[in-house]
């Protein structure tokens, strides 16, 4: 009699455990889907930023190109290299 009772209890425990783990699996699967969607979203975002970064970098290097800088300095801002005679050297 006692043995049967223990068996039934054990069985019930296992059934409950099984149900619990099944639910946990479903839940974690659901979570992982949510996370995966999130990852994909972030990856797309990252990709977009990378494209933008590349373009900005190009823009920056184009704008800071030596030739262009020199032209603006000389023609627009009228900068000149000072004559050597105009430089006063200070030696400590």
């Amino acid at each position: 009699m006692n043995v049967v009772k223990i068996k039934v209890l054990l069985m019930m425990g296992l059934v409950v455990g099984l149900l619990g783990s099944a639910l946990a699996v479903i839940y974690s699967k659901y979570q992982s889907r949510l996370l995966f969607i999130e990852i994909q979203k972030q990856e797309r975002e990252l990709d977009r930023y990378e494209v933008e970064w590349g373009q900005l970098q190009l823009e920056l290097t184009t704008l800071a190109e030596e030739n262009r800088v020199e032209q603006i300095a000389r023609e627009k801002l009228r900068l000149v290299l000072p004559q050597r005679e105009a430089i006063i050297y200070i030696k400590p």
Partner: protein
Amino acid sequence: MRRFNTQKQTRKPVNDFAARRKVLLAFMLGGMALLVGRAFDLQVLNKQFLKQQGDMRHVSEVAVSAYRGMILDRNDEPLAISSPVESAWVNPMELAEVAPSDIKQVEQLLGLSEGKIAKLIIPGSKRQFVYVKRRINPDLAERVKMLSIKGVYFDREFKRYYPAGPISAQLVGFTNIDDVGQEGIELAYESLLKGVTGRKRVIRDGKRQIIADIEAIKAPVNGQNIKLSIDERIQYIAYRELQAGVIENQADAGALVLLDAKTGEVLANVNYPSFNPNMPTGTNKGAFRNRGLTDLFEPGSTVKPFVIAAALQGDFIKEGIKIETDGAYRVGRNVVKDIHNYGTMDLTQVLKKSSNVATSKVALTMPPKYFWGFYHRLGFGVSAGLDFPGEANGSLLDYHRWNNFAQATLSFGYGVNTSVLQLARAYTALADDGVLHSISLLKRDEDSDAKRVFSSKTAKQIRSMLEHVVMQDGTAYLARVDGYRVAGKTGTVRKAGAGGYKEKKYLSVFVGMAPASNPRLVMAVMVDEPKAGKYYGGLVSGPVFSKVMEGALRVMGVAQDQVETMPLLLSNKTVQ
């Protein structure tokens, strides 16, 4: 269990279950028939439909392209950048089902001529992949994707941009349409730059657009950045001045190499004529060549300082020696000549006036083996080991096959072949007090492979002699740099070609260093076949040297050392 067993034992055997068996068998047979029927239905009757459906919900693997590493200069300024673009391709078999108006719309958006895509649809053709337009702006690709037309796809690719354009074109090189390095650094460091393409598993929808990622099979590994020793600012100045020099002298070409005298790093390496690496097609192939690294020439008078150095170092001559020149010197059956008869000269004058006779006499005081060994240790005939594609080894005649005349001609730079880079490398020994540096195109803090080839005393002696070359009555007054002491040597070399040395075809060379009191920079300039009248190294290459050196010293922030000529010198005490 025991109880169950005892029960079984008490049962009487039953024999007749025929009816039950029949029912059971019928059940099983029915089930089998059902399975076979269903299988037939799926495999034979509905195969076409199901296969199509399966393909539609296709799970497939796609490549994830990796970024190609950047090429940077020493201050992290980019010399080559990859930017993502999209390449459009079509599957003609699928396009057959698309309305012609849709195709026309795609053609318009992509800027293709009308019918370009439409004519790819050939009934019966099995082609499934044709690029229609490569490397388009991602925004434009997005707009075409919005139309979601079946059979039109986009692949992520990278376009390589070279912001410096022609300035560093031969050094950096370029990639082809598949992003594989073709020349220069792009080719030399291809394996480091390219990265590893990743793969991921995706689900595609009925239009074969990717609708979801399932998993990453292999993450892409981006290529490494390569940090060069080049300084883009100096590179720009060098290119500008070399270009001006070549054009002014109506020369064929020019090459310039600027080295850091303490570390052996290449700070500038420019060539003219150049090309636009952003669109290399259609360029004259000669412009692709990095002449400074790959082309060989006879260095001419620029090796003379080493002859004097060798003789002083080996104690074959004394510093105060006077040499009779008489304008010509008979060596065996040949005669070595000078342009003028310089009479009796000391060593400084020999270099200042660049006397062939005097250097030949000095050279012939040395045993061939010693003389050869000295040249060899300076790197003549030895590759600089940069792993640069097409890099020259140079050549130096073996001393066993020398006669006296060969030794004499070697002393004024014939019979030895060197690149501009190798010549500049040899001069690092004069610049860094007798220590010859190894050369690096990559940024580094110190040279771990430097070796002493002659004493510091010899180097200083030669350097002070070479300072006279850029003085008013020297051969290269135009190579001087205001405010800095410059030491250097000119070379005007008859060009050798088929059938011997050519008349009136010269290479104008100047090699020098500054500031001479403690050289930081070594530069070699070579101008090929100037045709505008002037051809002396000091007149053609000297001015280029002067302007580039001036700019480079300023960029590097090197203090002036020509103290006595400074316009105004104040001490701290007098500044209020």
